[in-house]
């Protein structure tokens, strides 16, 4: 009896694996194997050290890497601030207004990155809304060159990722019991102290999830820097594309790919560890 149940267990386990197998095959065959293959391309070339050395010591590549990190960091901080303000108000809004505001925040997310970046080409262009406005209020006498600057890329990425930040934060902020802030205030805490000592610590999990999504998203973004930054503001993603599709330097592209994967994974792991340390529920 015991034997047959063991056999049926094994049969059950086999059936379970059979159900997972096709999905596993897709991820393993189309992602893990090809990406591993890309990552090992520089390593098995026999000149891995030289390739990475050249990448990290080349002035142009250094500038691109630093620019990409800077753009991602600034985008994360700005969308964190904007997202927090919006999410805080949304979380405290009456039920009906809250659902409308959440839908309004999600709608841009459903519109593609190309369309949303294109919107800023219209706004930041020489005859665009921003230049019209600056000239009308007298802040500029001639149209400013705003497109193809780091500023344009950051604005575009903040626009792209603020909704993601709002969505990550609303859930966390909603769950903070308003009685806690009331209790702190009744004990004499100033609004600033309530914010710093009650709300902010409790919002940490959402802040970290949102920051990871925004940082990795803007660090690896392609369409926005391509459209709003052009060649003047090359970032790692657009450089990878250029190497792969324009100059057909696949070894160079693979080197950049490895750098991008390593930095992305490092950020995710570091932020997850930080989240575990700061999370009031586990710490």
């Amino acid at each position: 009896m015991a034997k047959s149940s063991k056999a049926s267990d094994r049969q059950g386990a086999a059936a379970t694996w059979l159900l997972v197998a096709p999905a596993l095959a897709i991820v393993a065959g189309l992602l893990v194997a090809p990406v591993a293959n890309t990552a090992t391309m520089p390593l098995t070339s026999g000149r891995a050290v030289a390739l990475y050395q050249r990448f990290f010591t080349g002035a142009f590549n250094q500038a691109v890497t630093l620019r990409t990190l800077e753009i991602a960091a600034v985008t994360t901080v700005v969308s964190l601030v904007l997202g927090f303000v919006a999410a805080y108000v949304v979380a405290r809004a009456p039920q009906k207004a809250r659902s409308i505001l959440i839908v309004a925040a999600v709608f841009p997310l459903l519109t593609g990155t190309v369309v949303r970046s294109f919107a800023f080409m219209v706004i930041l262009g020489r005859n665009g809304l921003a230049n019209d406005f600056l000239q009308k209020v007298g802040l500029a006498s001639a149209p400013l060159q705003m497109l193809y600057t780091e500023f344009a890329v950051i604005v575009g990425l903040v626009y792209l990722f603020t909704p993601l930040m709002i969505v990550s934060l609303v859930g966390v902020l909603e769950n903070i019991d308003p009685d806690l802030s009331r209790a702190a205030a009744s004990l004499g805490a100033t609004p600033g102290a309530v914010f710093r000592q009650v709300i902010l610590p409790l919002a940490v999990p959402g802040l970290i999830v949102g920051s990871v999504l925004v940082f990795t998203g803007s660090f690896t973004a392609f369409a926005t820097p391509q459209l709003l930054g052009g060649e003047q503001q090359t970032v790692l993603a657009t450089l990878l594309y250029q190497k792969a599709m324009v100059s057909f330097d696949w070894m160079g592209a693979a080197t950049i790919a490895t750098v991008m994967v390593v930095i992305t994974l490092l950020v995710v792991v570091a932020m997850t560890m930080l989240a575990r340390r700061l999370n009031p529920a586990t710490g």
Partner: protein
Amino acid sequence: MNRTHPALIAGAAVVYLFLLGPLVVVVGSSFSTTTFLTFPPQGLSLRWYENALANGAFRASFVTSMQVAVGGTFLALLVGIPAAYAMARRRQALPGFLGLFFVLPILIPEIVTGFSLLRLAAVQVGIPVLPALILGHALLVLPYCVRVVGASLATFDFSAEEAAISLGCPPLKTFFTVVLPNIRSGIIAAFVLAFITSLNDVSISVFLTGPGISTLPIQILTYVEQFFDPTVAAVSVLLMVLTVAVMAIVERTLGLTSFTK
């Protein structure tokens, strides 16, 4: 104290203006009679819509986008639903890292995935453009399918399935008549999310589109790099309308409330 500070409300209003304003700019500039992009639009005309609809490249890329989004999403659901089911039903029989494994397509930078798939499809295996795009998009949307269907299964009471089986219903029939109808809203939500993600994808498609075959976002990208007239604004508006239509159909048939369940 309970009331939100007016300055915060004003701040949130500015953020929302920033989020929705640019979409208004795109819609507005698509109606302009000028040959360059401007907002507020000068005059009112539909010529750029005519131009967009008459453009063969946009039309062809729209068809490709639809084929890829439908094909990729179906494929992802086809393999994703059984996987999500197995993970919900027999968690103990499967290793814990499996959940993380299915998030990998989101975790690995898309641009790296795209480049790696290019090498696989074009060089190592030699798959034609359209099937390569469908496979790439299936991979891209698989995490959403597994997670949304999985969330739906997490609230499903499997004792209903056991009851059916103990009453003599074959397992496969039980799955289709008992389990599947109960996770219907989750599957539809996964479909919509996956479909929209695929329809908007750039980073993977940009490597896999070949001569003569392009998806709509890639075609827009190419067009914008050459011309700067309101045609692209018109195409963008049509794409937005399509997104809204998909959402509206879901809302009508299911209600957005069942969407969040």
